[in-house]
């Protein structure tokens, strides 16, 4: 009986897109209000900022992985490119807006170059090469010490500042990151619901039939990767200026697994799934801090839990919570 009720709630949310987004928006506004009023402490504001950054990252990965069907494992490295570009630009005296622009464009261009190099590859082969690309960028982050300071990372990254306004507090960053996340979601949502978004899904379902309808598949893939890269760069820039410290391990396998878990739990090819997945996994992540677990094993415990969640999802709900396509 309980299972039937739970399924009904999920099905109801699946059927009513507007209700989902409205509920989410209202909850978001309430939390921001409570943070700004000081009712919720800075820790909550921090968690919400991190959720916002990962929301941008997950919906942009979902655009290529879920909607276009490209098994792209380079997203976390593109996130890193955005973070390093933005941090280095601003540390060298460039304005934030210019830094943000380049932090978005560079990952976009990298994504297109990667797609160009892998344009003949599909499924597992594409996954392997894009994963290799992540290794390559990670190696650059760690080895190009004159630029990135290698494993020491970049610290004292300036706060975001534009039009004589500087974002100092966590609460201010919460408002800024929420606006960025909402704008990103609106843009990607409209892309996926447009006729171009329909083409992306058609690329995923059957490339040959689409070629015979006169569609230039490679160009469609380039565009999808470019857009996805832009938003990975945006998330990277926000991350760099919020944390004020970045190092190569911030853009490595642990975060990639987190991102994949989010998408698989939420469901591929669903914007709601990408958003819901981030919220659920982040709540789970933070809840673990409340358990009496020594801090040195907290990280591995999280990895074990991610693995268990993935196995359970694959066994019992292969489409994820809101997903439209089967993982197989």
């Amino acid at each position: 009986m309980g299972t039937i009720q739970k399924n009904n709630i999920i099905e109801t949310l699946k059927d009513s897109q507007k209700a989902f987004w409205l509920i989410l928006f209202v909850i978001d506004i309430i939390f921001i209000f409570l943070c700004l009023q000081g009712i919720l402490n800075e820790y909550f504001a921090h968690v919400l900022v991190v959720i916002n950054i990962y929301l941008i990252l997950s919906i942009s990965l979902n655009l290529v992985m879920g909607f276009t069907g490209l098994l792209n494992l380079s997203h976390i490295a593109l996130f890193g490119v955005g973070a390093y570009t933005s941090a280095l630009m601003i540390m060298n005296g460039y304005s934030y807006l210019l830094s943000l622009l380049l932090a978005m464009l560079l990952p976009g261009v990298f994504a297109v170059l990667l797609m160009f190099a892998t344009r003949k590859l599909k499924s597992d082969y594409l996954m392997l090469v894009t994963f290799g690309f992540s290794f390559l960028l990670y190696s650059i982050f760690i080895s190009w010490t004159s630029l990135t300071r290698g494993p020491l990372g970049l610290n004292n990254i300036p706060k975001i500042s534009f039009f004589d306004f500087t974002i100092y507090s966590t609460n201010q960053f919460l408002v800024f990151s929420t606006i960025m996340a909402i704008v990103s979601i609106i843009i990607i949502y409209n892309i996926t619901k447009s006729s171009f978004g329909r083409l992306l899904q058609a690329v995923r379902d059957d490339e040959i039939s689409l070629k015979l309808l006169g569609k230039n598949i490679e160009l469609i893939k380039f565009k999808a990767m470019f857009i996805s890269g832009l938003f990975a760069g945006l998330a990277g820039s926000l991350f760099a200026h919020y944390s004020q410290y970045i190092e190569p391990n911030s853009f490595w396998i642990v975060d990639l697994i987190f991102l994949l878990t989010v998408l698989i739990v939420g469901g591929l090819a669903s914007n709601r799934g990408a958003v819901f997945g981030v919220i659920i996994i982040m709540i789970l992540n933070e809840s673990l801090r409340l358990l009496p677990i020594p801090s040195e094993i907290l990280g591995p415990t999280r990895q074990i839990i991610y693995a268990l969640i993935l196995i359970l999802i694959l066994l019992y709900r292969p489409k994820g919570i809101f997903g439209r396509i089967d993982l197989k």
Partner: protein
Amino acid sequence: MTLLKIHNLKKSFGGVKALNGCNFNIEKNKITALIGPNGCGKSTLFNVINKLEYQESGTITFLNYNISKIRPYLVSELGISRTFQYPTLFENLTIRDHIEMAMFNDDQKFFKSFFIKLFGLKKNNDKKIIEILNLVGLEKPLNTLGSDLSYGQRKLLDLAIAIAHPHKLIMLDEPVAGINPKLRQKIKEILIKLKEMGETIIVIEHDMNFIMDIADHVYVMESGQNLVEGKPKEIQNNKKVLEAYLGE
């Protein structure tokens, strides 16, 4: 008037010569049938015309353009539509999506399509879509997913997509394979109607009765080459054709 000219086309897969110097002329406003035993190279010929495969030698001319080396989407843009023996639809898209994608090519323009969605400027194309579906006799709601269609319905939607796509030539790969006699009759009537409307069609089919009823001209292939050609009645009793099919 000749719409499509194929000259001395050759294509091998390893040691197998799938096309071994075949020649065809496809006349405008006619139904041309391509028949031959399994493995004689009919589907390979279709794939080479569509550029899903590239020939090793020989030329293909469509509307006086040499399409021997161009990319598949350009062949389609020039006006060649095609169906498959096993219709491959987009499982997660609706009937409406399939037909709209076939009808229009500006969905590839990112900014145009994004702003049309953002500002709700999308035109309603349902009337045109329903006209095409009525032509092929597919009576299903427009929001039915491709994955929810039966085999016969998939065949009809595949045909509707080929018709909806702006074209000058339609290529049909075994349009009545594996379907019931009632639907076969229906597809026969659709093709005859299309011919009356001035369409140019090439059809691969094994069902000889079907071919005899619809085709204006028949090419028979064997081992990647032309065996004979002519009017359906001339082909029906040709000794070489009987040998190729029945091994007599």
